[in-house]
């Protein structure tokens, strides 16, 4: 892994919260990252441009306004459509209810996020992840399977056998 590693820090288009971005930038820098912080309400097109111009080692998506789940889906799909592959993680408060955290994690991992950080220990887990990534590469990370009951994870329609 290149030292320092290059990270791109973004949020979703509808989210104007900044303290999370200001804080995460410092955490990333203190953990050996170079940070390009695209700021609040990041348009998808701007993320695509930034990734295309200079592919980061890690794309970090942070959202707390409750629309992060949807924004994260839209962003990943847009990256795919452009043929841009980059390890990306997402975290914060991703829907309007904490009780969704398990299902949200399952859905976003399934979609292709490398890791999803919500809840109280998000930053501690993120630091472990960064430590691992710096030595092994971020794309080598294997997320633990999300613990969710199947009926709590309506990511796609649940198929039942009659």
């Amino acid at each position, binding site marked *: 892994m290149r030292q320092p590693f290059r990270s791109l820090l973004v949020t979703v*288009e*509808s*989210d*104007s919260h*900044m*303290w999370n*971005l*200001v*804080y995460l930038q*410092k*955490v990333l820098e*203190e953990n050996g990252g170079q940070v390009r*912080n695209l*700021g*609040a*309400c*990041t348009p998808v097109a701007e993320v695509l441009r930034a990734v295309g111009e200079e592919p980061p080692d890690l794309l970090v998506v942070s959202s707390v*306004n*409750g*629309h992060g*789940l*949807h924004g994260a889906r839209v962003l990943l799909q847009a990256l795919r459509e452009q043929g841009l592959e980059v390890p990306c993680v997402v975290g914060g*408060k991703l*829907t*309007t*209810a*904490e009780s969704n955290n398990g299902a949200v994690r399952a859905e976003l991992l399934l979609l292709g996020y490398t890791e999803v950080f919500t809840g109280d220990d998000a930053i501690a887990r993120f630091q472990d992840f960064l430590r691992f990534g710096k030595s092994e590469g971020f794309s080598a990370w294997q997320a633990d399977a999300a613990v969710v009951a199947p009926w709590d994870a309506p990511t796609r329609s649940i198929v039942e056998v009659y």
Partner: protein
Amino acid sequence: MGFGRLAAMRHGLAQVAELDFPVVGTLTLDSYTRVGDHVTPLERLAAGEEVNGYPLVSYTAEETRELLRGLEGPTFPVQVRHGTALPLPVFRSLVAAGLDATEGGPVSYCLPYSRLPLTEAVDAWAESCRFLAGETEFGHIESFGGCLLGQLCPPSLLVAVSVLEGCFFRQHGLRHMSLSYAQGTLAAQDRGAIRALRTLAAAHLGDVTWHVVLYTYMGLFPRTPDGATGLIRDSARLARDTGCERIIVKTVSEAWQIPTVSENLEALRLAAAEAAVPSDLGAEPDDGYYAEVLEEASLLVDCVLDLDPDVGTALVKAFSRGLLDIPFCLHPDNRGAATTLIDDRGALVWGARGRLPLPGPAHGTEPARLRSDQLHNMLNHVVNRYDKHGAMVSG
């Protein structure tokens, strides 16, 4: 309070309307609407998901009128809170739904809420103010200048932006407005700041009607029910002790997620009960803080108004020169050279002043120098105080 679905929104407002003390209903808009996306909210709702507020522009005026029917009126006014930098569509929708009271301002709804150029927001807000003033008899805007990023902002800047936005509203034809101030880290400083706000507003807004509205702490909130309750209670005391005409409260869910209707009702009851208790203001004088905030805020306001006879132009010039600079704000038009510290009195003070036209050393801890743990400690200053001592904390 804001919910995406019509039935949920009506239910919430109906419950608030039934409270037996004076309340104002709020329609808080979702953040897709805030950035001008009026399609996604209805799509997400149709997909069975929730959005974080009421998508006023996506619904028809008739749907919103229906929602408000029998609730909104002289005894139960409803205000629209929206966080949009380009507010004309929201203003059109609220007027079409029969409403006339809203919130924001060219600076306070742009820099904390979008990445659009300040010049665009200034033009759009000017047009929208004239629209509201022209279409309604008592059109009212509450400046969000007293909040900005919600935390870690020295009070003098909050006071100055509130007053400057008041001047902007007035220039664009509004005659009814309110000026906001968000509870900070220290009650004595807040009391001094609110007095300073009144002094400055009296000097600059003599010929319009205005009042002061206090926001319960708008930053990172205590996580325990006791801590959150203690903070809300102290904000109600602050409003009472400073004669604030209105207070906007938070709920015990603030640190976590969108609050339920019953949490909203609980918070309103708590604040109303507390505000009714006679003031026990004793020891802690606020004269020092009053003088300090008034001096700084006056310097800021005068310096900005001297830049141009047009308030909007003056605001744009002030930000581009760093004469106004919101600590930690990432907006491209914010210089980002100023920082805040919490001093050993527990008061919010300038760290680095950047190019702010204020006395004192220009160089404190620069934004990039601050470590994550220092920022974390400051963000959690209020959380820790209240979560440790809960309802015991006061004054």
